[in-house]
Structures are given as structure tokens and as C-alpha cells.
């Protein structure tokens, strides 16, 4: 219960935010990314607003020795930029731009009546599985602490 309840509540608030702000709509996201077209600033407002409470929480966190319901803060400490990070981010961006779905909105949008999020999520899971197999067979790969 210590894991289940906070996970569920936070997921619900997160999903509600994605739906309220229309980020579940790929057309809205692509309109933001289309800087040479009829540009839509919505995503900028959403991300800008999201950063405020998120940053506040990281500031509060500095005064805490442990999380309220957990034993330790598991925050990535690595500061080094490597090729994996940048290649991965670039690949993600291409996929995101192609259709306008990123992981959160695609999952949240599963229940909004469209079939496309289902196909996208299945393909995304396949992509994650490919990466999982790929790293398992490359034992020399650096560990993922990023």
C-alpha cells in the first residue's frame, strides 16, 4: 500500500493534467512543434507551468533527509553528457515529431475513444523491449545511472 496508493494518486493527477491541457491531442503537440507553420504555444504554457511546482518540490526536498513515505531519494546524480543520452533523445524527438505522441499522453489517451494510442503504445513497448534485449546482449555497456 505504501507504494500503490501514492503511485495511483500521482498518476491520476498527472493524467488529469495531460487531458486538461490537451497534451493528449497529437495535433496540438505537432502544432507546437511546427515552428514554421501555424504555431500553437499551448505546450510552452503547459511545460512552463509544470516546472513551477516541480522546481518548488526539489527546493523543499533539500530540507528533507528522506521522503515522507520512503527511505531515500532516488534522484539521478550523473552530470555527464554522453552519446547515449543525446542519441536516445534525438531518436525520441523524431518519433515524437512524426506523430505527436510521447509516452505519458499516449497512455493517458488510451481511454479517450481513439484507437491510435493503442497501436502507438504497443509499438512503443516493442521499442523498449528491443532496447532491453539490445543492452542485455551488450554486457560491456555502461550502467544506467543517469
Amino acid at each position, binding site marked *: 500500500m505504501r507504494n500503490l496508493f501514492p503511485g495511483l494518486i500521482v498518476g491520476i493527477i*498527472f493524467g488529469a493534467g495531460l487531458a486538461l491541457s490537451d497534451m493528449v491531442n497529437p495535433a496540438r503537440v505537432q502544432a507546437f512543434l511546427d515552428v514554421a507553420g501555424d504555431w500553437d504555444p499551448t505546450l510552452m504554457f503547459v511545460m512552463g507551468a509544470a516546472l513551477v511546482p516541480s522546481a518548488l518540490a526539489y527546493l523543499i526536498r533539500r530540507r528533507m533527509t528522506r521522503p515522507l513515505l520512503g527511505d531515500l531519494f532516488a534522484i*539521478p546524480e550523473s552530470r555527464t553528457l554522453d552519446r547515449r543520452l543525446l542519441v536516445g533523445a534525438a531518436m525520441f524527438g523524431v518519433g515524437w515529431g512524426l506523430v505527436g505522441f510521447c509516452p505519458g499522453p499516449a497512455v493517458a489517451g488510451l481511454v479517450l475513444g481513439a484507437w491510435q494510442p493503442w497501436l502507438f503504445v504497443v509499438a512503443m513497448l516493442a521499442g*523498449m523491449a528491443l532496447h532491453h534485449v539490445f543492452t542485455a546482449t551488450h554486457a560491456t555497456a555502461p550502467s544506467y545511472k543517469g
Partner: protein
Amino acid sequence: MEAMTPFVAIGGGLLIGSAAGLLLLLTGRVAGVSGMIASATRMGSGGTPWSQATAFIVGLPIGAALIALLVRTPEVIVTSSVPLLIVAGLLVGFGTRLGNGCTSGHGVCGMARLSPRSLAATATFMASAAATVFILRHVIGG
């Protein structure tokens, strides 16, 4: 596509950021959706407990459904073809794992704590996404 006021967008953004902040303060975890999906499907490396990650992922569509019931049903306008959806899904799945995060983990959580890795990742995926849309709409589609 319906018009969207900045106030609604800001309201939604505040919910997303509050959720991320709440998860950090309650459980000490980063609310990155791609990492949560990986943990929920036991493909993760981050160590978020399976039950917490799964509950989070299940919560996302519940939250969206609540907005559809209580506020309005968001439009989901997808113009992409089936092959494009599959290719994009594969790229997003593989890329977010290779790059350790997506719009939420790097964009909302990482940038909020000024992580250099997240700032670089966010700049990179924003640029490659914008370049992709440009090619799609103004080079090929133009």
C-alpha cells in the same frame, strides 16, 4: 481543432508539475513516464518498485477519463498512417530508454532541478522533433 486558452494550459501544467513534485516528496522518485513504463513492464533499470510504477501508469488514463467526465472530452486528432504510428512508437520506446527519459522525466522533472543531462536531452528532443515536423510538413508535404 478547438481554441485553447493559456489559462487552461497553465492549469493543466500545474497539475502535471504538482503530480511530479508530490511523487518526489512522498516516495523520493522521479515522475518520468517512460521510466515508469519500463519499471511496470519489468524492463526498468531505475528501481522504482513495480507496484508503484504500475499504479502510476494505471492512474494516467483514469485521470484523463475524469477530465473527460467532469470537464470536457479532449480531442485526440491523429492524422498519421498505421506504418508511421508503428515507426514512431518504436523510436519513442527505444529512444526514451537509450536516453533515460522523455518529456516528463527530462522535461518536467530534470529541468526543474537544472540537471545538465536533462537540459541537454530536452534541447535535443525538442530540436529533433521540430526538425521532423518541419520536414514532414514543409519539405515532403509542402
